[in-house]
């Protein structure tokens, strides 16, 4: 069974743990640096990026997580998780992990009343047909620039909403809130190639 950690300070980490367990992974909460040992993958959930980033820094997780990602540990960041991974956050001097070469804008679609659902075209693998995937965008960020080698796996009105570069997968919406587990399955495939 593949062991996957979920950063569990704040946000909807429980929902990620549930989806991963349903898919047969051994999913564990991560709140201490030593809990990173033995993991085949790591999820950074949705929530408030400032809060999660602050707690990761305060409790000594920021550097170890950055290191394991740089060493190649597969990582999935959803919404706040994508902000934490981003190398550049618009209108902010703050960078949290900064491991993924994208620029991102927080709350780019507005406040909660502007949150929305959208159906996204998504191709699970290279040979597969495009199948729509439900996207729940909650106070969502927008990826505004991609660095070299960052691939767009799904887009909405021209904005990338699922991107991947090597071991890093980042989304601006919440696959953990819908019954559709394809993103998590794709991620588990990255964890146990």
């Amino acid at each position, binding site marked *: 069974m593949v062991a996957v950690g979920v950063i*569990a*300070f*704040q*946000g*909807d*980490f*429980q*929902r990620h743990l549930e989806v991963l367990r349903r898919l047969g992974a051994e999913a564990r909460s991560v*709140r201490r640096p030593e809990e990173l040992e033995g993991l085949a993958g790591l999820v950074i959930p*949705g*929530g*408030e990026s*400032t*809060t999660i980033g*602050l*707690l990761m820094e*305060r*409790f000594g997780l920021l550097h170890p997580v950055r290191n394991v990602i740089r060493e190649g540990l597969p990582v999935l960041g959803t*919404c*706040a998780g994508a902000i934490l991974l981003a190398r550049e956050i618009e209108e902010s001097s703050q960078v949290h992990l900064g491991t993924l070469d994208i620029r991102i804008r*927080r*709350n780019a679609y*507005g*406040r*909660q*009343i*502007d*949150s*929305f*659902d959208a159906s996204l075209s998504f191709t699970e693998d290279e040979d597969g047909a495009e199948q729509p995937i439900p996207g*729940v965008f*909650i*106070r969502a960020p927008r990826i505004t620039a991609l660095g070299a080698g960052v691939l767009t796996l799904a887009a909405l009105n021209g904005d990338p909403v699922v991107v991947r570069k090597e071991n890093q997968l980042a989304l601006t919406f*919440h696959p953990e*809130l819908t019954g559709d587990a394809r993103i998590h399955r794709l991620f588990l495939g990255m964890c146990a190639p």
Partner: protein
Amino acid sequence: MNETLWSERQTTTWRRNVGLAEMLKGGVIMDVTDAAQAKIAADAGAQAVMALERVPADIRAHGGVARMSDPRMIEEIQKAVTIPVMAKCRIGHVVEARMLEAMGVDFIDESEVLTPADDAYHVDKYGFKVPFVCGCRNLGEALRRIGEGAAMIRTKGEAGTGDVVEAVRHMRTLLSDIRSLRNCPPEELMTRAKELGAPYDLVLEVSRTGKLPVPNFSAGGVATPADAALMVYLGAEAVFVGSGVFKSDNPELRARAIVDAVAYHDDPSRLVEISRGIGEPMTGINVSAMPHEDRIAGRGW
């Protein structure tokens, strides 16, 4: 009988609003009265702030009618922080709720802390795009609010006292009510719905799933990091802190300590470190010595 659960039949707006509540799990929501306090809360790691003119302890001290805050004060807080901003409307005050929605607050708390505008009915929350959180003391009250469209429930506690006893009692009552439904044979559920004063479909869902269909937070009386950790231990998925931060000696230190305590609620030695030397908590009011008419948790129908 319909085989799908009540929550599976809800609109995408409702689901998205419950989704925002999911994003707020595992953290602390702090009452703030101006932009400077909002910044202190956000820097300490609060995941959201509740904008209101007076914290509950001051509402008690001040007396009179407590109403929705001045829009300008809410807007200044919205400008000051990037985390979600919540605000309170009076129970049943549809117009205050509409105004808060028009201002783009991220969550409306239809709150017993303010003086109720309606002594029989709550706001029909389904008519709104913005999510609502409502207080409860037990399962019946929680399910009535969810039946009206609330996307988050918080147990009420006794706001502005710094005494956690009512928060504990309400959380224990709610969870014990849920456990007793779990063991209930189907033929008893209609009578249980009648006794609880709750919609039958929601009673059915809770008896099947063993949990509320929306996140369940705690409020009212949290004054120390240990209080916050206690509420998480009891089953709260996040904690609201009202007067506890800004009525204490050192709001910066206490705010941060309460955030840390929720994150490490199950680690006593870390809680010792977190709680050490953070100054005096709010003085507080012993709820058991409090005249009955001063209690506000009873507001809500």
